[in-house]
Structure formats: C-alpha cells, structure tokens
C-alpha cells in the first residue's frame, strides 16, 4: 500500500521534472530570435525533411478520406432527399476536424518519429556533444530549426489535406453520384465560415504541430543513446503525440465550437 503510494509519488515527480526539462529545451531553443542569414538555410533544410517529405502521404490520405466522406455522406443524405448538403458535410467535417487531426496523426508517424530517431542518433554518435565542444549550442543549432519547421509545415499540410479532400469529395459526389455541382458548392459556401471554421481548423493544426515537434525533439534529446533506447524513444514519440493530439482536439473543439 505504502509502496504503491511511493511509486505513484516518484512517477509524478519524474513526469513533472521531465516536463520542466522539456519546457527548458523549448524556451532555450526558441527565446532567441533566429538570425536571418544563419537560421533560414537550416530551417529550409528541415522544412524539406519535415514538410515536403510528408506531402505525399498527406495528399493521398486527404484524397481518399474526402472521397469516402462524399460516398458515405451521399448514401445517408439521399434518403432525406438532401444530397445537395453533401458538400457542406464533406467540407465541415474536413475543415473542422479531420484535416487537422488526421494530418497531425500522420505527421506524428511520418515526421515526428523521424525527428526523434535523427536527434537520438546524433546523441548516440556524440554529434551533439561534439557541437558543444566546438562551441555551438545544439539546442539552437539542431533543435530550434526543427521546431520552427514543424510549426510552419503542420498548418500548410493540414490545409493541403483539407482542400484535396474537398475536391476528392466533389469528384465523387458530382461526377460519379450526380449531385448538382452548383448546389454542392453553394450549400458548402453558405455553411462554411472562414473565421469560425477554416481559421479555427488552422489554429488547431498550429497547436498540434507545435506539440508534436516539441514531443519529438524532446524524446530524441532524452533518449538513451543505444539502438534500443532510440527505438523506444521513437515509439514513445508516436504514442505520446497521438494521445496529446486527440486530447487537445477535444479541448480545442470544446473551446471553439462548444460555446463554453
């Protein structure tokens, strides 16, 4: 009984200490304004490996999810003779929920795990220690550009996901199922609000991008520098960031759309 209490206490303290270290990493890496000449090439390089390399999986998943939404929405709505509203359904569910959340989950799996593995490997091969000895702060040189690249790419990826999905839904419902294209788009436009729906979706994806890259980078830095330690850290990144994305999605949805 007392042992259980002690273990719980120790666990809490460890988690709290970990969170403190993670916050320190974040502040230390970001509280310096990046120098344009120096940092931008580094960020561009990371945008490539974090953003461009995730593009394919995002576009393909967005397309298929949009097409499925079109198909499912049509079969439900046609019973109520309201198949015109399929555009509204596809657009709202993508813009508000599916684009930010599914993009975030894919991003955690594709880019987050790669970030953790890369930084863990740099730690294991003493590249981080070596940077320190050369007189370069690894948090600013290695971590900061990756964090920035994550923040920048997530909203872009999420918006690409949404638009590809909406066009996928449009192709299915207009060209295959014969929904009248004028009403498909006009019902969508009258129900989707730019500020309430589109911008809120973008804000969600920004928050998710921030959290995922933060977790990924921190797990990489904290990983045990062995091959086993790195593989465990990679798994932790995907699990923690997926859980955080889903939990935060609920909180954000409640704040944005829940009128509380």
């Amino acid at each position, binding site marked *: 009984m007392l042992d259980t209490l002690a273990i719980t206490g120790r666990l809490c303290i460890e988690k709290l200490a970990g969170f403190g270290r993670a916050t320190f990493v974040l502040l230390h890496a970001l509280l310096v304004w990046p120098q344009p000449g120096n940092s931008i090439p580094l960020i561009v*390089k990371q945008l490539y490996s974090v953003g461009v390399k995730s593009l394919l999986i995002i576009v393909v998943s967005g397309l298929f999810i949009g097409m499925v939404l079109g198909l499912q929405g049509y079969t439900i709505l046609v019973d109520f003779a309201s198949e015109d509203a399929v555009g509204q359904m596809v657009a709202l569910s993508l813009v508000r929920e599916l684009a930010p959340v599914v993009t975030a989950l894919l991003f955690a799996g594709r880019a987050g795990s790669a970030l953790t593995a890369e930084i863990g*490997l*740099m730690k294991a*091969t*003493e*590249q981080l*220690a*070596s*940077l*320190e*000895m*050369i*007189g*370069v*702060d690894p948090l600013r040189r290695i971590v900061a550009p990756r964090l920035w690249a994550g923040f920048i790419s997530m909203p872009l990826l999420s918006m690409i996901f949404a638009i590809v999905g909406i066009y996928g839904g449009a192709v299915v419902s207009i060209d295959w199922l014969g929904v009248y294209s004028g009403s498909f788009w006009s019902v969508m436009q009258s129900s989707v609000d730019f500020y309430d729906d589109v911008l809120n979706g973008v804000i969600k994806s920004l928050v998710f991008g921030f959290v995922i890259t933060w977790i990924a980078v921190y797990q990489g830095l904290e990983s045990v520098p062995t091959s086993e330690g790195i593989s465990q850290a990679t798994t932790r990144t995907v699990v923690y960031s997926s859980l955080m994305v889903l939990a935060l999605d609920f909180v954000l949805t409640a704040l944005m759309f829940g009128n509380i």
Partner: protein
Amino acid sequence: MSVSDNVIQISHLKFNRGERCIFKNINLSIPKGKITAIMGPSGTGKTTLLKMIGGQLTPDSGKVIVQGTDVHSLARAELFSLRKNMGMLFQSGALFSDMSVFENVAFPLQVNTDLSVELIRDVVLLKLQAVGLRGATSLMPSELSGGMARRVALARAIALDPQIVMYDEPFAGQDPIGMGVLVTLIKKLNQSLGHTSVIVSHDIQETLSIADYICILADGEVIAQGSASEIRESSSQKVQQFIHGYPDGPVPFHYPSVALMDELTG
C-alpha cells in the same frame, strides 16, 4: 613541477551518477605541451573525466582548472569561448552525418571565426593534408571507413589550432594499420603544433608508446601516475593486472557468489 606548467589541474573531484559513485577523490595535473594518458578499466569514468574538463558535465564537488580558470564557475558564453581552445576527438568520431568531409572540418572555423571563404578553404585543406585525407574532401561520413572517419574528426578537432586536444578512446576498434596511423599522427601533431594532448584509452601498448605521462584510474581514484617506465615498474597489483591483462587478480575473474561446492550440493 611548478603550477604554471600545468594546463589542467583537477583537485578533489567527486562525482556520483545516480546511486553509483564514479569519482571518489581525483587529484590530477596535466602538464603543458606533453601527451598525458588517462587509463583504467572500462567503466571507471575516463570519458566522464574528459567531459568534465570540457565543461559538459558538472562535478558534485571539487575543481577543474583549465588554463587558470575554474571551468565550472564560468557562465555559458565564457565556457563556449574557453572551448575554442580545446579540441576533442570523440570515440565514434562524431562527424556531422549531413555534411561532407570538407564541411565537417570547415564547421568550427565557420562558426568561431570571421575568416573569408578562401582562407577557410585553405585551412581545411592544410588540416586534411596533415591527416592524409586531402583527397577525400567531397565524401560523406557514411562513405568513410572507421579509421578515416576518426582522422577526419581529428582534422576537425585541430581546425581551430587549440591549445588542448582531448582524445576519447582513439584506438578503440581500429585495425592494426589504422591504429599505427593514429599513434603516429597523435605523436606528430603534438610535436609539430605544440598543444597539450590528453588521451583516454585502455590500449596499453599503443598508449604507453607515445605518452609522456600516464595516470591510471580505478575505483574512483588515481591509483598510479608517472612516466611509462615508472608505471611498468609499479608495485601495485592492480596496476600490474591492468597493464599485463591478467584474468585474475585484485579485479576478480569470478563475479561475487557463494562457494561453488556449497551451491552444487545445496
């Protein structure tokens, strides 16, 4: 030996990692311009000691004084500028995997100096010439053999002409040729550039052949120090076991257990 001759002075160093005691009480001085070897069995914290000299780890108590300044009392920026006087060759080489050989060697110069691109190029080529790899400038670290990677890392460590160069296990995992090349290089560079070399290693023959001064660590303490011949003639059993590699001695062959007969007969 006067104090001013010692570039690095370590006194009453104490360090615990978790429950485990790494250093009980280390007192050590490293003379200027010489090759000093720090030896000892695996797990005695030789690499930890190097990291403390470089200020990457902080001891629980005790002082590390490098060139007259206490490393662990320095602010971040001062520590970073002190490190420009130190080069370190890591065990794994630690070349930046996303940069070519040339960029790796040029990196310390780019971040720490205002030299022009042409000048940096010349310096890099000279350093690579010194380690015999001027022909490999455009290769990526993944294309290098282990020995070549370590030589590139050595070129990078001496790129800023540091006053102290630290070698972490430079001979580990090298074939005889690679080892010979490194032994010669370390000796030659020390003589021609006049820096202080600190080698951490447990390769006895190679290290004894080049070190001017040797110090053996065991159980968190310095158990012997002196020149190569002094170490060879040391009366300490621990030292004898270590330098000759006897399987049994003060460091026992058997992991502590009850007597075999007792366990077999129950």
